[in-house]
């Protein structure tokens, strides 16, 4: 379970950036080299490589050296819709219960005071 959660956190963190989401979407249409990815998105090669490394660590992208170019494809980890919903729900529930507790405990103190 802990393992599962850290994997999911990594995935969500990797996707919490619009450039990286754009890279994932582009790769969803087929493999591409780093420069083929960078150019249409208006990104630098260095920046693209940095984002690709984060996506690769999260398992969302794989890269392979072919000749002098590095070819990128979607990785083994696909984000399951339900997984995303459950995780975001869990965080919301946690925050909600925190605030509910704060409210009722504050009200209770005011009544006692």
């Amino acid at each position, binding site marked *: 379970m802990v393992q599962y959660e850290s994997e999911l956190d990594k995935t969500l963190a990797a996707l*919490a950036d619009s450039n990286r989401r754009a890279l994932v979407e582009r790769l969803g249409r087929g493999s591409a080299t780093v420069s083929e990815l960078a150019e249409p998105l208006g990104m630098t090669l260095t920046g693209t490589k940095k984002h690709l490394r984060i996506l690769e660590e999260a398992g969302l992208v794989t890269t392979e050296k072919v000749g002098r170019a590095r070819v990128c494809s979607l990785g083994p980890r696909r984000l399951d*819709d339900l*997984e995303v919903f459950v995780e975001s*729900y869990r965080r919301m529930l946690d*925050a909600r219960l925190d605030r509910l507790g704060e409210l009722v405990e504050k*009200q209770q103190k005011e009544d006692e005071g």
Partner: protein
Amino acid sequence: MSGKLKIETVGDREIRGERVFDAPREKVWAALTDPELIPQWWGPRQYTTVVDVMDVRPGGQWRFVHQAEEGSDEHGFRGVYREVTEPERIVQTFEWEGMPGHIAVETMELEDLGDGRTKINTVSLFHTTEERDGMFNSGMEGGASETYDRLEELLASQG
């Protein structure tokens, strides 16, 4: 807070939570069911929560809306109350309008601990609307970029 005990995921379809609050059960029940109190705790701190609909009785609907600031995107949440047993049990559905098709069925039980404290037990079961309607949907499509965008905003807002 007196008791941030735990929230755990059981399998991939169920979340159980448990908290102890230093307040009597009637107060906790009021916070859960009074539309005037909902904006004070339901949403993330930095958001304004507006109660659009809140009809607390079996079959009654609820809809709350979060907004970070005037003019920014709104996040709507909605559901239906299935069971309302004052002051100890509420069962309701939960759906985020940004990710339609997934629903959680939330059961909240309020236990009077007898010393002025109240324990809340929550169980949330996840279904797709297809399952709710009696079909099993095994092929869950990957989220579109819009979903990710909205998810990102939502998670960021949770801190």
